């Protein structure tokens, strides 16, 4: 469409040549976009109106999948509740703790790069390794925490096997593996001009004032970025609940993406899974748009090298 708009303006010969060269260079991506992004998106709209199990041809059932989802499937609303619970807690907690950790790393600190490495590494080790470790640490019988609790004569904490604890435990793990956000925040903090702090100090602002009136506004674009990214990520959380609780106990950790995975790859209901995916995509798109709109009132684009 960009190309069509450009040709309307009538290109000179040189421009046409550069357009062709440019398009040739980006053609792998352009082709890939059509095949691996646009076509799947469009076909998934079609499949969402069908019953399709990959073996028999797809059968058109109109709004059947959507109707079932909203009105005939009690599990769907449990899953929605679980997901809202998880996203609602893990995203704000994650962004706040990541920002706090980055702020601590941004001060004068002995062994700063060691601390940075310690905060960052959990987010890059293979997820399956983290899952095995947490499974072990949180185990009721053999886990280190419950062993200590038992020795102290206290009741054990059923981290992954009780409805009350399973979701908070998964949120805790998500807070452990967020080093990427910390590193991005740290880079933003280092870009805040020193002169601002010095000027404020001269004017008698204390550390808390400086943090609130300089650090946060100057970093607000990156706060928005991390908020959006972790928001989209949390909505799709799949691997940790899949490996640690497999959705249980009593479906209390069956989040949206896992329900979608089950419909598609355990029950062979491709059409239902596509319908679920589109509902999620719409919700995420609307909420992300709202986040961006709200940003006008709290994100400050004025400073730094922009």
């Amino acid at each position: 469409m960009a190309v069509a708009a450009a040709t309307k303006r009538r290109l000179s010969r040189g421009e046409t040549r550069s357009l062709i060269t440019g398009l040739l260079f980006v053609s792998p991506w352009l082709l890939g976009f059509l095949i691996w992004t646009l076509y799947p998106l469009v076909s998934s709209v079609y499949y969402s109106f069908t019953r399709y199990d990959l073996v028999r041809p797809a059968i058109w059932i109109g709004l059947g999948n959507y109707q079932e989802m909203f009105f005939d499937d009690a599990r769907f609303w449990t899953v929605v509740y679980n997901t809202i619970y998880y996203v609602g807690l893990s995203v704000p907690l994650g962004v706040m703790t990541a920002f706090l950790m980055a702020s601590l790393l941004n001060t004068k600190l002995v062994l700063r790069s060691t601390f940075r490495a310690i905060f960052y590494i959990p987010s890059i080790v293979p997820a399956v390794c983290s899952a095995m470790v947490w499974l072990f640490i949180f185990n009721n019988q053999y886990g280190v925490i419950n062993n200590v609790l038992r020795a102290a004569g206290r009741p054990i904490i059923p981290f992954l096997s009780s409805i009350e604890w399973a979701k908070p435990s998964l949120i805790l793990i998500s807070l452990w593996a967020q080093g990427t956000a910390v590193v991005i925040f740290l880079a933003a903090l280092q870009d805040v001009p020193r002169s601002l702090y010095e000027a404020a100090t001269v004017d008698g602002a204390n550390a808390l004032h400086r943090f609130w009136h300089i650090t946060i506004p100057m970093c607000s674009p990156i706060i928005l970025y991390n908020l959006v990214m972790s928001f989209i990520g949390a909505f799709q959380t799949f691997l940790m609940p899949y490996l640690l609780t497999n959705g249980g106990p009593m479906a209390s950790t069956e989040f949206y993406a896992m329900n979608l995975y089950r419909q598609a790859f355990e029950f062979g209901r491709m059409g239902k899974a596509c319908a679920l995916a589109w509902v999620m995509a719409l919700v995420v798109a609307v909420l992300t748009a709202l986040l961006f709109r709200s940003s006008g009132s709290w994100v400050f684009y004025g400073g730094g090298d922009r």
Partner: protein
Amino acid sequence: MTAATQNVRVTAQQEGKSLSRVIPEIVKYLIVITLAVSYAFPLYWMISSALKTDPQVYRIPPVLVPNPAQWVNFINAWNSDNFTLYTFNSIFRYAIPYMLFTIASSSVVAYGFSRLRWPGRDKLFYLCIGTMLIPYTVTMVPLFIIFSQLKWIGTYWPMIFPALFGNAFYIFMLRQFFMTLPEELAEAARIDGASELGIFFRIILPLARPALAVVALFSFMGTWNDYLGPLIYINKYTMYPLALGIQKLRNMMSQVGNAPLAYPYLMAVSTIAAAPIILIFFFAQRTFIEGIALTGLKG
């Protein structure tokens, strides 16, 4: 530090307020150390448990440093299943093809998005980075349908073939790097009659080696760590990557019903799988941090 802050500090010290400076420092270190200990503990526990005997795993108070360390756990755990084959699959069937495909395609595309001027370029580029916002769950199922129609289920093609078409994240990273290269180099070659392809291969690519190394590093980690892709597409044990092999060991251990040494073995294999990533991080710490920060900040 400017003269102004120094003045403030001097007057503060003159008034004997040094204690009010020390206490916040102590509080700060207490918070940082508490955080660091709790962040480091899980991976520390993984490594130390890998070196324990069965009774040591469950002993109270917890054994922090097993002595003597059971190094033999690593060998026995490794041989308890076909982990050599799984590692081979991870590297040669997945990581390396993916890496080569990604570097080849993403660098060409990034060149087109950065060093060439053509109408509509920036609009297409925004579309390209915009695709990064599309939740993968939306394309996961229709892509599976495509690949099952192509009869590619059970192979690594669904995971590596699309890499031939470039990856928005790496295109973005390489473009940012190409933009920093001086225009004069290419200009001189252009006057000498070099083609764009020639400029790309002979001038830009050799200069971009550090950036290509970052892409190689990140894409290796992405595939080595990937669980969901193989979970969906790989259905034979002989094709398993290491990540799925670890989960298989866990299932084997729990089927036997608390098999002896279940946790030390599981931790040993997990340690081996995490080791390359941790080592890469320590060797390339700067590259890592800068790469992450760059993509975050300019995004």
